């Protein structure tokens, strides 16, 4: 069977180009790491780059808003409105876990939901932080005695910041955001280790 050679469509061209680009990036990355390892510029480079990267991390946390229950109305729907305006701290809500830095869990996590939430957490790239918002996400809240309730998000994923309240006001989440900034500053997570 003879097939006529076809012009590649735009999508396949983008795919081929991006594969080329990724291969090129990998080569560049390896080259850069080799230079850092061999030469003496690593120390002065780190002195400039580490605080810069950390500053960038602190002021551009992109949250994955995992709104399960009523806390999702208070935080973050109210958080992004003109009154509280979370975007002035560089918080841009994203809908894909692969683009996010912090996971905001607000609401009751059921046993059926647990593996899905775990999977979303694993899809997020490092460095990542988890914020448990509201009594339900912290400990199960008023539904803790239920037959289908996971008693706290920290039973299956590590939580960095707890925001108590039922539901918490947006101001308390702003406070939590400053605490998270301190934590990012202290931990220096996500810095290039060569």
């Amino acid at each position, binding site marked *: 069977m003879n097939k006529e050679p076809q012009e590649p469509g735009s999508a396949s061209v983008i795919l081929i180009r991006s594969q080329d680009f990724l291969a090129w990036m990998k080569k560049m990355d390896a080259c850069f790491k080799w230079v850092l390892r061999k030469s003496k510029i690593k120390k002065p480079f780190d002195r400039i780059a580490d605080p810069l990267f950390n500053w960038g991390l602190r002021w551009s946390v992109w949250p994955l808003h995992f709104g399960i229950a009523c806390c999702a109305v208070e935080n973050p729907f109210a958080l992004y409105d003109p009154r509280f305006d979370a975007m002035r701290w560089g918080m841009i809500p994203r809908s894909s876990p692969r683009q996010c830095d912090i996971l905001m869990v607000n609401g009751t996590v059921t*046993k*059926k939901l647990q593996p899905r939430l775990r999977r979303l957490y694993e899809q997020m790239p490092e460095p990542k932080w988890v914020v448990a918002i509201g009594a339900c996400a912290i400990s199960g809240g008023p539904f*803790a*005695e239920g*037959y*289908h309730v996971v*008693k706290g998000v920290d039973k299956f994923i590590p939580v960095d910041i707890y925001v108590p309240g039922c539901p918490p006001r947006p101001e308390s989440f702003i406070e939590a955001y400053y605490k998270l900034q301190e934590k990012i500053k202290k931990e220096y997570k996500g810095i290039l280790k060569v």
Partner: protein
Amino acid sequence: MADLQMIIETVKSLESVELLETLTEKRIRVKIKKGMLHRLCECLLRLGFDHCSCISAVDYIDHFTLVYSFWSTKGKIGLDAYVDLGREEHVPSISGYYGGANWHEREAFDMMGIVFDGHPNLRRILLSEDVTYFPLRKGFRMQDDSEGEPTTPKEGT
């Protein structure tokens, strides 16, 4: 179109159907035996009851009661059918007559453990598949762990 009087007479004419009460002009309650369920469904479909709005199960410790709610969208008349069941008894499925009853029956199975014979897909609908207990039964308790927190379910009476 069937009016209220005609519906009452037709339902009464079925054997072993007991008319409990007529609450208002728009609401009828009947009590039937579980073997009559398919006959009742055929009859109701002829009378214009085209919607099975709810199937709820009630636990009376010694027996279950299923409450079927039918609704006639044209006549605006509701009919509740009460079916008594033993603890271990099965009940015929009406999902062949009312397609919407499929999910209601799955929910009754999920929460109360009532088995519907002839159901095309009797699986858990709200809880996950590996759950072994029926949480809305009266005998259901959560067993406490060492810290006094309710963790594992326990089936009582």
